């Protein structure tokens, strides 16, 4: 049976490209010398990939056949990407802890330096709570301004990486590094920066609020 090549398909995986070709169902059935009702697999593409496992189960019961969802079929790939996610989050959290200790140290030093000021504020009627609030405000403003600067810097870096050429046969439509600009990641970044600075500021602020002005003033 003569067949005419009408186009090339490249998946990027060389092994598959060397051995696989595509034809219409009717042609394939003819080649295999089977009847028009012979079909081995049907693949269903869903708008929401997360519905696949439930749907596979439903079809299995409905049509009395074997149905595999995409997550099971690609479990190797899933494992790989979840490992990558864990790695990137643990690197991120490590950096936050380091930065948090940095802020903790800065605030601690600041409290030692500002002992006199704290003492006079307390003597003139500011309560421990007021002093606590002052230092928490300082910590949070480091978090908020640092967070904003960090997000701008991060966005700039992403935009720069977005311009770097990235050529691979596997993904012929992609010419530069693929960058995900999903705002969710920026929100996560902002929340983490504020939470980290709040925690880093909490203990120094508590210490500042407990300073006894008598000890400072008498010590002079």
């Amino acid at each position: 049976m003569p067949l005419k090549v009408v186009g090339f398909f490249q998946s990027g995986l060389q092994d598959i490209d060397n051995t696989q070709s595509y034809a219409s169902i009717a042609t394939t059935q003819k080649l295999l010398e089977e009847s028009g009702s012979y079909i081995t697999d049907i693949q269903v593409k869903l708008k929401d990939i997360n519905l696949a496992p439930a749907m596979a189960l439903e079809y299995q019961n409905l049509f009395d056949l074997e149905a595999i969802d995409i997550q099971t079929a690609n479990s190797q790939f899933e494992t790989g990407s979840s490992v990558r996610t864990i790695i990137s989050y643990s690197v991120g959290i490590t950096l936050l802890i380091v930065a948090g200790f940095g802020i903790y140290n800065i605030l601690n030093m600041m409290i030692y330096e500002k002992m006199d000021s704290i003492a006079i504020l307390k003597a003139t009627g500011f309560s421990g709570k007021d002093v606590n609030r002052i230092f928490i405000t300082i910590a949070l403003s480091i978090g908020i301004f640092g967070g904003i600067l960090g997000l701008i810097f991060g966005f700039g870096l992403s935009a720069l990486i977005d311009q770097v050429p990235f050529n691979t046969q596997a993904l012929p439509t992609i010419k530069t590094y693929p960058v995900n600009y999903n705002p969710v990641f920026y929100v996560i970044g902002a929340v983490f920066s504020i939470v980290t600075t709040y925690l880093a500021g909490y203990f120094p602020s508590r210490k500042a609020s407990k300073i006894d002005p008598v000890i400072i003033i008498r010590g002079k």
Partner: protein
Amino acid sequence: MDQKILEAKNVTKYFHDPITYQVLKEISFSVNRGDFISVIGKSGCGKSTLLYILSTMDTDYEGDLLIDGESMRNKKEAELAMVRNEKIGFVFQFHYLLNEFSVLKNVMLPGLKLGKYLEAEVEHRAYEKLKILGIESEALKKPNQVSGGQKQRVAIARALINDPLIIMGDEPTGNLDKKNSEIVFNIFQELAEVYNQSLLIVTHDNEFAARTHRIIEMEDGRIIKK
């Protein structure tokens, strides 16, 4: 005139470090409105300790303390802070001005905390106080740009901002030279005589003490002469 604004009843205090030692032994006395009192005594006699108890900053004592007829015994830290803010003005040996703020802002701070007046009013009042002390021209400078004597006057203005019942001083002239001490003394005298301001000043400058209205002399934790 004979209204009691501050009264100490059997105030006793111990220091526990390094050994238990009784610093104050049943001190009782009272301050009336308009009194200009100095507390003298050798160092270690407990006069500063007494002042810090009277100021409500030190709460570890026995006996009772009444300020404006109210007992300070069972008040919480935040309530005591409010009492200090509203009723007590402090002048220490060191000025304790905040270099981050202008002289004017330093004077305004306790007033802003009190929140009785709007910011503009507090600023106006701060100017008035600086005028009484003759340093209104320095108002917008930073504390580290004015002289030592002026700094102490700024500290006095800060003590006056909320029109306190009493001004407490712990060696307010201790760091000043003869001329500036004289200025500070004259200010205190003017406050007492013109503005009927009560003052309680701890000092070891006998010359300074001799010119106040009433001298309390202390020795070994007791008042030996009123």
